[in-house]
């Protein structure tokens, strides 16, 4: 940038810093999602992802052992145990406060003795060992509630991913989405490439009218055609099935595909195509051997668009596919999870990551074609 007239170094810095800030602003939420998705679910419910490396303080309600475990010691009835359960480990946490009433769950320091109602006493040690005493016999079928505040070391886990992929059915939906997306990306590209070549390089009457009609189709809102199309599918026996959604996505994607590819292909040097014709190649050979390899950037950029659009689509999948296990796509599954598991952030964040993983891979592997394909189409025109 240095040698460019009129650009001071200060300005360059401002530009660079703003760019950096924008990038940070853009990536922080995603980063937060990632961290949240690998945290332990109980810790996630208590504190934000930015505190994930610090120990977590949690308020828990535990219950003492049932009255049938009481023993008589020197005239008083005693129940003992550990609030963290029977298995004792290092990562179970440390008690920093305890209480016996829900109104004051942190009233007492560990190792002190709390006086409860009716002469009962409770003490809880740092390691979670508790001792509950009573002058009269404990009755009933359940233990007393013990409120503790515990400090736990940060925990990270891949269990959330296991759960969403297998228990919550996201794995199945992932395959369903793949089943929808791959054909719904390839079919329109195939058709559009042929059409674009014909519209760019083959002379036939009404060619420009046809092109204008196709471009005109871009402004038709697809939402209008959903119900009539589904009714048509039902009448001809396709019903709610994958073939229907492939056809729908193909139809909805074609106008843009034809338009983009046609502009790109029309911009290829006339000399190449003419010399091929002179050498005796027919249109099919020219298309296959010359035009297709040369228009790879345009094909790739459209493929990215179509892939992302189909991958993220909820509306069309909702209309043309059922809500059952075999057909529910990932966006649909996420929507249902927002409802049924709305409070389980570990589930939602992990699901979100599963759903963005593939588009990210697709985008980064093809992105170097994106700008090239788009620009060459739009700048040259035809």
């Amino acid at each position, binding site marked *: 940038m240095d040698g460019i007239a009129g650009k001071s170094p200060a300005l360059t810095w401002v530009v660079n810093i703003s760019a950096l800030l924008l990038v940070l602003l853009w990536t922080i939420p995603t980063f937060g999602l990632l961290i949240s998705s690998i945290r332990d679910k109980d810790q996630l419910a208590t504190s934000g992802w930015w505190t994930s490396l610090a120990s977590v303080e949690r*308020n*828990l*309600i535990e219950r003492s052992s049932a009255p049938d475990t009481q023993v008589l010691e020197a005239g008083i009835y005693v129940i003992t145990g550990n609030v963290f359960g029977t298995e004792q480990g290092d990562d179970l946490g440390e008690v920093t406060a305890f209480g016996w*009433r*829900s*109104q*004051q*769950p942190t009233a007492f320091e560990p190792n002190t003795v709390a006086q409860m109602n009716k002469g009962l006493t409770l003490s809880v040690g740092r390691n979670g060992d508790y001792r509950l005493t009573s002058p009269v016999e404990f009755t009933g079928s*359940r233990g007393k*509630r013990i*409120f503790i505040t515990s400090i736990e070391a940060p925990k990270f886990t891949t269990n959330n991913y296991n759960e969403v*992929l*297998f228990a919550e059915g996201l*794995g*199945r939906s*992932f*395959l369903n989405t*793949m089943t929808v997306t791959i054909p719904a990306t390839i079919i329109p590209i195939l058709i559009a490439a042929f059409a674009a070549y014909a519209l760019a390089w083959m002379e036939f009457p009404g060619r420009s009218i046809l092109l204008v009609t196709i471009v005109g189709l871009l402004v038709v809102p697809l939402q209008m055609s*959903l*119900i009539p199309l*589904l*009714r048509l*599918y*039902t*009448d001809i026996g396709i*019903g*709610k099935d994958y073939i229907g959604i492939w056809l729908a996505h193909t139809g909805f994607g074609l106008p843009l595909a034809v338009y983009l590819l046609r502009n790109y292909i029309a911009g290829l040097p006339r000399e190449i195509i003419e010399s091929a014709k002179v050498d005796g190649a027919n249109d099919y050979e020219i298309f296959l051997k010359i035009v297709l390899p040369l228009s790879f950037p345009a094909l790739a950029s459209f493929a990215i668009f179509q892939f992302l659009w189909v991958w993220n689509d909820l509306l069309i999948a*909702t*209309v043309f596919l*059922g*809500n*059952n*296990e075999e057909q*529910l796509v990932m966006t649909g599954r996420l*929507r*249902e999870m*927002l*409802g*049924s*598991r*709305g*409070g389980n952030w570990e589930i939602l964040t992990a699901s979100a990551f599963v759903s963005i993983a593939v588009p990210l891979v697709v985008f980064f592997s093809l992105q170097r074609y994106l700008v090239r394909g788009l620009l060459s189409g739009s700048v040259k025109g035809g």
Partner: protein
Amino acid sequence: MKLPLYLGIAALALSANMAQADGHLKFAPGEDARFHWDSYEALKSTDLSGETITVFGPWLGPDKELVESVIAYFEEATGADVKYSGSDSFETQIVIDTEAGAAPNVSIFPQPGLAADLAAKGHLTPLAAGTADWVRENYAAGQSWVDLGTYAGKDGKDELFGFFYKIDVKSLVWYSPENFEDAGYEIPTTMEDLKALSAQIVADGGTPWCIGLGSGGATGWVATDWVEDFMLRTQTPADYDAWVTNDLKFNDPKVIAAIEDYGSFARNDAWVDGGAGAVATTDFRDSPKGLFASPPKCYMHRQASFIPAFFPDGVEVGQDANFFYFPAYASKDLGKPVLGGGTLFAITKDSKGAHAFVDFLKSPIAHEIWMAQKGFLTPHKGVNVDAYGDDTLKGMGEILLGATTFRFDGSDLMPGAIGAGAFWTGMVDYSGGKDATEVGNAIQATWDSLK
């Protein structure tokens, strides 16, 4: 590299499905004497092998597992393949599907109003002849259930389209008995006491209520239940009935007063967990969890009988959680009104299997399997009440019996565009701070436009 990965995922998904298929009957047939196994054996005479029946309803998560546990018996006995799918956006999805002719065989409607709309458009198939008589004889207050399921078809003729299965008592307040005991609170028996208790809890530094309206495409229905409960507690049953049919306008001062009564709870920052702003955004399935937090985020939660299905794991109803009747005003002489609701099954695509499935719902076993688990009440007189999973459900039955007035959920009876539309969004607006009169006017305007 990718292919083996997909194959691996596919294999895992497949094995998970197979694991589910084994031993999917919750209670082994013939073993538990609480159940009417004879009705299960009788079911075996219907052979539906090779037949697929699609069932679509609003139940997801725990409810989905529960309904599938019931369906499993039907599949086992008849050999039919029943595919249940649930959606949070049932109300919109079913309209699309029936409109396009791609409807499931059987649909489970949470609202009679929506079913009536679809019946009028000719999208529902009338139930088999004799079903109405069966309901009249075998359901408690049978005639009222027949009336609620009878709509005018496309030809204008009244027929029975909906079969009620699973009803809910809505006028319940859930609480944690141990939290009440710790704080020394008594269960209120009048609305005045309830309000005094709420104020008392605030004075003690707590938050009395957890209220959440969120429910995907159906966000807002929780608040409509509150308003209906207050309509029954401030106005006569005749006024309530007039309101449901719009003879009493939505912007009538009586209705506005009921909405504002709800607002005295939900729009009071100190009375609701998270403040009034959190009401509309909290999911109704998450809001009861505040009862069981340490320290408790709230002490009371007004919700229908099905809500224990959404309590956190390990919460025992009857021990950790219990309920009391959402009380009536002592100052008004309106008795003890109870609000209820229910889901109805209707045939959206005719088939032999669909009719057989509705027949299955008549058998006691279809009710007992769910009763023995949780969140299920039934008016079926032929079932063994000992099958109820806990005493809590019995207690709800008593509230039902002790009612001086029983009314069905009003929003469910209103036309779909109101009861499953304008009323919901209106209540979300109101909870968000809009004026009650303005909301009443807007809902009435929508209703006028339907006429």
